[in-house]
């Protein structure tokens, strides 16, 4: 088995993606990058014996598109006050975030080998004071919308232009606090605040429709007086995600909500949409089969 460091992408390959001017080509490159991240974290989670595959794989294209296409970031100066903010409210997708942050150059790729180790800078869930590039600690669900609102209000008050993106999952939206936050977002309505729903419809214990139904989700946000994108975007199609971000830009004067249809565990057929793979250890057989599928897709994308 190859090690994570073998997979290290040199920084110039990121520049190749980020600097691509042809948007269609750029989307294809980001798509391939996201799939590479899936392969890498699949290896990592198998090796470490724990961590959340399902929710990480679900957010691969969302996070990759944000970091390679939209967010203004400063990997050499992670606390730059003008940076765009990302609140990963579904903090259990940490493996995907860490993988992308490392490739962006926030910390050495080698650190990924220490994920969830004693004294690692990569905690089980994101910790802002241990991991460069993490804008707020997360993991306990339901905090992100309130925290992101605070960041966006601070921008307005200080006349700064940075964006704040909050990525929530169904678990977050089960929490009552999210709806307190949504009410407040509608009331205070700061510019450049985007709530992205990674809507894979599976939560830890099972299908959302069984555990805690959220539909009709767009209508719920609208009833709370928020500006919701008219369509539900495909959260695994980078071109679609780019379009959704363009829509957010056109609506930057007020907060926006974008819902993305995604699949938990995306990329490994027998793990997709299956709550069993929310956070279970990846066994040898599943690893071998899953890895083959992921590589197969990656080859097609390259």
């Amino acid at each position: 088995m190859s090690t994570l460091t073998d997979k290290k992408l040199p920084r110039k390959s990121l520049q190749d993606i980020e600097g691509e001017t042809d948007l269609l080509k750029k989307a294809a490159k980001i798509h391939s990058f996201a799939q590479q991240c899936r392969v890498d974290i699949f290896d990592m989670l198998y090796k470490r014996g724990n961590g959340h595959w399902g929710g990480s794989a679900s957010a691969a294209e969302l996070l990759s598109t944000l970091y390679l296409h939209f967010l203004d970031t400063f990997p050499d100066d992670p606390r730059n006050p003008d940076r765009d903010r990302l609140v990963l409210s579904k903090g259990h997708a940490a493996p995907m975030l860490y993988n992308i942050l490392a490739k962006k150059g926030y910390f050495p790729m080698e650190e990924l080998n220490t994920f969830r180790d004693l004294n690692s800078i990569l905690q089980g869930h994101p910790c802002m004071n241990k991991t460069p590039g993490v804008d707020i600690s997360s993991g306990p669900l339901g905090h992100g919308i309130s925290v992101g609102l605070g960041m966006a209000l601070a921008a307005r008050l200080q006349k700064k232009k940075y964006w704040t993106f909050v990525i929530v999952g169904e678990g977050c939206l089960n929490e009552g606090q999210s709806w307190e936050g949504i009410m407040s977002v509608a009331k205070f309505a700061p510019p450049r605040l985007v709530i992205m729903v990674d809507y894979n419809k599976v939560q830890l214990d099972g299908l959302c429709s069984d555990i805690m139904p959220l539909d009709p989700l767009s209508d719920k946000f609208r009833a709370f007086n928020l500006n919701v994108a008219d369509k539900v975007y495909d959260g695994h199609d980078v071109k679609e995600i780019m379009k959704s971000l363009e829509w957010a830009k056109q609506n930057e004067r007020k907060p926006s909500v974008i819902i993305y249809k995604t699949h938990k565990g995306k990329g490994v057929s027998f793990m997709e949409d299956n709550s069993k793979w929310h956070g279970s250890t990846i066994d040898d057989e599943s690893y071998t089969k899953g890895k083959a599928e992921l590589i197969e897709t990656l080859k097609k994308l390259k």
Partner: protein
Amino acid sequence: MMKYTKQIAMRQTLGEVLLKLGEEIPELVVLDSDVSSSTQTIHFGKKYPNRFFNVGVAEANMVDIAGGMATCGLRPVASAFAIFLTLKGAEQIRNVICYNKLPVILLGGYAGLSDSFDGASHQSITDIAVMRAMPNLNVIVPADSVELIQALEQMIHFDGPSYIRICRNPTPVLFENEEPFKFGKIRKTQEGTDITIAACGVPVYMAMEAADELKAIGISAEVLNVSTIKPIDSETLVNSVRKTGCILTIEEHSIIGGMGSAVAEVLMKNHPVKMDSIGISDTFTSTGPYMELLQKYGISKESIIEKALKLIRV
């Protein structure tokens, strides 16, 4: 309470000091949860409407909005009734404010029994215990409105979070012309050799009065105002009991986990002595006038004298 003719409610002071700090510190923002006309943060809201955020009855949400603001250079003060701030907002205080060591001031109003007529559901007798258990969090219980002003002036510049506990009712002004409050330091209001009486918050004046009466019967009590409960001033505590050999604590809080427990934790490791504590025993309190309630639950000068005499005679 006759001795202290001047009485001011801490919440009234809060309203005034926030106006002053708001002028000095442009990063200061205030959040409240639909109780601003009670907590008196409303005055800040009227003067600085752009820097005031009334989030409605949603303490958890308020704490996290404050947290998000603090990561972006603002200095938030988040105000609510102590019981709801520290219990409904507990997980947010722990996982967003304290875990990330964010410079937020959490103001718990109407604390202890001071929301007296609203009853047990509104009386905050567990807040010190819960806040004290949070890593990175300073816990401050001013004894009067003077200490409240000084605590706010100091903690607003502190690189980390603080919980400040405030009484609703007018209470004696004790330290108007005294040395200012020092964060992390115990104030010794009276030297003594026979017993140490450690108090915090409103009961500090009761301890001072009790010491006067004990003096009249020949007992020399040392009175400590433990207004910073965390980090606690171990040195002053240990030095005091080394001299007196026993200590009595009094607070307007459950005897489980409050200031008395904090004192016991220090002394059991450093200098165990005879000890007793006054506070609300493990029970729910009731409705009634504030001073009568304090009396009912044994938070009084008389209790201090009674328990002090027992402690000395053991």
